[in-house]
């Protein structure tokens, strides 16, 4: 059953990729092409540590 689901997902992905080839006129969402090399100035950089979380997962060494 799992193999059938994987097969359907892969087949849908391939078909949608091929269908996507037919749609080439799309509204642009980005403008990064128009940023000059010296057009980016980063003036603020802050990395603040908040907390740590630990998740423990049992490894099932038997058959899957």
């Amino acid at each position, binding site marked *: 059953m799992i*193999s*059938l689901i*994987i*097969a*359907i997902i*892969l*087949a*849908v992905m*391939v*078909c949608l990729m*091929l*269908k996507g*080839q*037919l*749609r*080439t*006129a*799309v*509204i*642009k*969402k*980005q*403008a*990064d*092409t*128009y*940023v*000059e090399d010296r*057009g*980016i*100035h*980063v*003036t*603020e*950089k*802050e*990395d*603040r*540590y*908040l*907390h*740590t*979380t*630990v*998740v*423990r*997962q*049992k*490894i099932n*060494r038997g058959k899957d």
Partner: protein
Amino acid sequence: MATQVTNYQCPTCTAPLHFDGPSGKLVCDYCGGSYEVAEIEAMFAEANKKAAQTAQKAESEKNEDVPEGWGTEEGMKSYSCPSCGAELICDETTAATSCPYCGNTTVIPHQFTGTRRPDYVIPFKLEKDAAVAALKKHYKGKFLLPRAFMKEAHLDEVKGVYVPFWLFDTKATARVVFDATDESVRVSGDERIITSKHYKVTRGGTVEFERIPVDGSSKMPDAHMDSIEPFNYEEMKEFSMAYLPGFLADKYDQDEKTCAQRVHDRCRNSAVEIMKDQVTGYTSCIVADAKVSLEDQRVKYALLPVWLLSTKWKDKSYLFAMNGQTGKLVGDLPVDWTRFWLLLLGLTVGFWLLAGVIMQLTS
């Protein structure tokens, strides 16, 4: 009789002149003469000035005599062809066209006077043949394109249009806060231990965008105009009407304020992405808060070259646009749904069998 339009005619034989992209000159198909843009510009400067003045005079007279809304019928305007006297019916934004009767290339200088004068123009570099060839190439290698479309769809129209574009220089000031995690996994005995260190990461700064194009014509589909980007601005010239003969040209009907929203959305998205690129060394990074302020520092008006090709198939029209400078062609194509579903079924069965074989081999 004073006329509102100018015909660009060959100084030697008076046949129509047209701008030839590959040579960058105005050429006459009849006598073979070719002329530099500057030469023709100087030759027709006086005619253009007179035409613009006549149009201005006609407009002011119309405003005095005719009640508002009566001057232009359904957004159309009519001009008289100076060569054959035929009536040219155009959109009120048309700035260059050709006479359907005598074929003379016609420019309407009044559309480019005062504040409506474009700052720049990128001349056409590619000819009509290149556009037709690019469309045929566009059909190739597309498995889901109906085969009948390739055979039956016929080209209705191919036209070279100088499309009015606004070029925005915009500065974005951004401050973006991210939720970032640094994750490590280790195995201890029969346990997998996932340790996640959580951070609040802030990046701020400015991003300067230069000459983002946005079309100022409501007649042009935005998706097509966006998709044929980018244009090579190094080949951009100071505007001259001498680049227009032989092509259609429109004046903008959406001003820069109307078009600014589209540019701002793109700048905002890119500014956030650029700030995200500055965050490194984490396993994951999600935008938690973004504040972007935008300032348009300069807006210029340019005419950019676009080939528009329209085809018809099963009573439906398909529009394609090609960048008249770089040759990039875009346009949506129909889907062969029978092929789509058959392919989906075939691939599903194929992948299922493959997965079965792999599972048998590994077990």
